[in-house]
């Protein structure tokens, strides 16, 4: 082996920069390519405000669960039970609200607590007994699928109280005077968000410059900021021209921001990646690996419960079949987004983009009239292709 510590010539460093960025932005570019493809193939139906809003609503619960799944996968585990847990929680919510007429906020809190307990029950065996998560959560998948059936006694239960339905099918309240077809509150929020993102980026760059840290060239930074602002504003415009921001989009955006922050900037986040990267080294560095693993499962349980509530509210009924197969979409989203099956690698942004790729393909192929049979074939191939691309990239 040669000593690689000598500094590389300039053009090689440049190549490395491009390669790293290709890895980081590759999936984002793929998402845009896929969206463009379906936009053209569907004669513009994909990006119509109505369809775009539907796209968000249809995929919200997958994105929410993908956030938790990413942490589980980063620690080197897997959770196969999330679909069943989401279905079971939907059933519990239905029974509480429809049969027992429990208040909507109380019922939601109760459901989230049940989700946490489910996550704890599974995480306990994985973290403290060393039982492979594949087996524990496979068992959980069967258990909660069965319990959902039992709770609902094989029947669909609904409809939910209107306030609860708003969780999924509601839109943020309009507080500003009407201006034609656009929803001004949503538009304003979008503009503020775009400005805030650009400002935060510029501030962090300025801070790094003031400490003499090497940063990306100004032109690149400027182009990136403009592109980011444009994308945010464009989507805001589209969504505002239908019925404004859906409530669930607000929840989703808040969660994405929170998990992005936790994974990138906090001690806990760093510890989670360390456990996945090398559990033994992490343990010998004083990290409480078992407790961390346990809490990633508790967190997954809470998010699966939230996703179950969102899904139930969207269907306005709890059915015994709800949640079937969700786990596959969620896991696929994480892997398409660049998470490593060996643990230690994966980004929140990647998982979200992965979920959106799956969502856009589902939606686009449905508009095109591709049968459910070939939709699955194509999704499977995309998953395999994305992971192969990643592995190939790492080997180079």
């Amino acid at each position, binding site marked *: 082996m040669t000593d690689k*510590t000598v500094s590389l010539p300039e053009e090689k460093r440049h190549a490395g920069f491009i390669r790293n960025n290709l890895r980081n932005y590759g999936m984002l570019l793929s998402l845009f390519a896929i969206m463009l493809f379906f936009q053209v193939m569907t004669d513009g139906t994909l990006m119509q405000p109505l369809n775009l809003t539907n796209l968000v609503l249809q995929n919200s619960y997958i994105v929410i669960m993908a956030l938790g799944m990413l942490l589980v996968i980063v620690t080197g585990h897997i959770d196969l039970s999330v679909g069943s847990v989401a279905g079971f929680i939907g059933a519990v919510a239905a029974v509480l609200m429809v049969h027992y007429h429990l208040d909507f906020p109380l019922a939601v809190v109760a459901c989230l607590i049940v989700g946490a307990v489910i996550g704890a029950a599974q995480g306990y065996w994985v973290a403290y007994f060393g039982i492979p998560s594949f087996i524990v959560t496979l068992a959980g998948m069967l258990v909660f699928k069965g319990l959902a059936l039992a709770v609902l006694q094989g029947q669909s239960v609904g409809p939910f109280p209107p306030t609860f339905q708003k969780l999924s099918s509601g839109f943020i309240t309009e507080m500003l005077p009407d201006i034609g077809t656009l929803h001004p509150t949503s538009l304003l929020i979008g503009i503020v968000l775009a400005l805030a993102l650009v400002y935060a980026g510029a501030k962090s760059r300025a801070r790094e410059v003031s400490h003499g840290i090497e940063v990306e060239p100004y032109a690149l930074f400027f182009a990136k900021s403009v592109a980011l602002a444009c994308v945010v504003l464009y989507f805001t415009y589209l969504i505002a021209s239908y019925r404004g921001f859906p409530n669930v989009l607000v929840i989703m955006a808040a969660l994405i921001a929170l998990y992005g922050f936790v994974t990138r900037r906090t001690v806990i986040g760093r510890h989670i990646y360390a456990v996945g990267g090398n559990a033994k080294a992490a343990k010998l560095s004083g990290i409480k690996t078992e407790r961390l693993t346990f809490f990633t499962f508790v967190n997954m349980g809470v998010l699966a419960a939230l996703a179950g509530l969102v899904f139930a509210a969207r269907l306005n009924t709890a059915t015994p079949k709800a949640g079937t197969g969700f786990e596959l979409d969620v896991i696929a989203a994480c892997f398409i987004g660049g998470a490593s099956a060996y643990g230690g690698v994966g980004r929140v942004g990647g998982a979200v983009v992965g979920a959106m790729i799956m969502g856009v393909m589902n939606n686009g192929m449905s508009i095109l009239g591709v049968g459910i049979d070939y939709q699955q074939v194509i999704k499977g191939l995309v998953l395999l292709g994305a992971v192969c691309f990643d592995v190939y990239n790492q080997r180079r």
Partner: protein
Amino acid sequence: MTAMLEMRGVSKSFAGVRALRDVNFTVNAGEIHALVGENGAGKSTLMKVLSGVYPAGQYEGIIVFDGEERRFRDINDTERLGIIIIHQELALIPLMSIAENIFLSHPPSWLGVIDRDEVYRRTRELLAQVGLRESPDTLITDLGVGKQQLVEIAKALSKKVRLLILDEPTASLNEADSAALLDRLLAFRAQGIASILISHKLNEVARVADRITVLRDGRTVDTIDCRSEPIEEDRIIRSMVDRDLAHRFPERQAGIGEPVLTVEGWSVQHPLHPERQVIKNVDFEVRRGEVVGIAGLMGAGRTEFAMSLFGRAWGKSIRGRVRLDGRDVDLSNVPAAIDAGLAYVTEDRKQLGLILADDVRKNITLASLYQVASHGVIDDIKELKAASDYRNRMRIRSQDVYQEAGTLSGGNQQKIVLSKWLMTDPKVLILDEPTRGIDVGAKYEIYTIINELAEAGRGVVVISSEMAELIGVCDRIYVMNDGAFVGEFAGSDASQEKIMRAIMRNDRLRSKVRGSDSRVGEIQA
């Protein structure tokens, strides 16, 4: 007597480190040839060259077998000629039977269907030859280590062995099992099968060997013909350890102060075999500004001692009293040990020390993230500054702190691990084999760092298998064997011969005690 095997001028390096230099080694037909030397002298490397683990082209020199020059591509080539190696870690599959293990690679079969009657018949024959009275159906996991060793030998016999290589076969055997195994070798010699025996136990070597070759620093330094000259243990020990100091050690002003770490009556049981006591009632002390060495052979219990101390990261039913700066401290888990002021730099950098896929910065700050964070949020600029600071101070040669740790050389990786622990500001650092797999230049830098740590008033414990290194850097050296300290020398007073003698004497003593122990054990079983 004709030479069956001749290895001429064999050299081999790993990443610039010379493991073998111009080694000459011959084995005659039907002799038992013992190969002795310190840990890291190159014995195992030489045997891996011979058995095709390192194929032709990866080493320099010539191998002649049966009068013909050979270029082995892999282990299949050597096995075809009847050269069979039995590694120290046995290569048996625990949940398969004896018969399945013996005929794992080439079972007698017809059209791919295994002929079970033939397998059993031949297994019984082979077991009779090695003197193992067990059913071919017995699972490996149900056998003791001694019997597993015999199964390995039976497996070798099934491949028509002509030259049997045994790498420390008796390291984990008791006296009775060792004797039985050595008797087998003598029986094979009578049948014309040659053996190469790698061993640390000179009494065993003296009992069976026809010739003894001593390897030191990758060179053959002595070959003794036991049939024509008497075996002098002193001569062998001197050959093993005596050498000019290949590397020099930086000077240090010793400023030794009060005791900082005091351990009394430390005992540890094996985590998987709770009846086995691995560390036996050990007392240990480190003073401020003192560098204390722990010498010993592999398996003496040095790493187990250190890891059990470091937040009970190893072992079960740990007993004993530990004081840091005169106060009793809680070392019940790793975070507590770090808080108390202990740091442990593991011997296995890649598996236990680093997150190879993470960058230099993240590895350095891993054990002390809260120092660069407020309310659990990492201040990335503070973190970057801390990491860059250590990168400069420790002279870590990387492009920047964002380079992946896995792409750096061993010496630089070791400096990252040292940085990680220095950042926790420990009172006592335990360094386990700190220079293993590191080239000479980087070794010097590590020694310099050790000196700086001691001069700053920290206590430093160095565990090493290189005795010259311990003598070069330590103020005081404990010698550990079989989980207990069997000697203690002042650094100025220590010599490699004294250390080796302390180990060997105790080994012989232990063999006698163990022998009687094991008979009791067998009756109970």
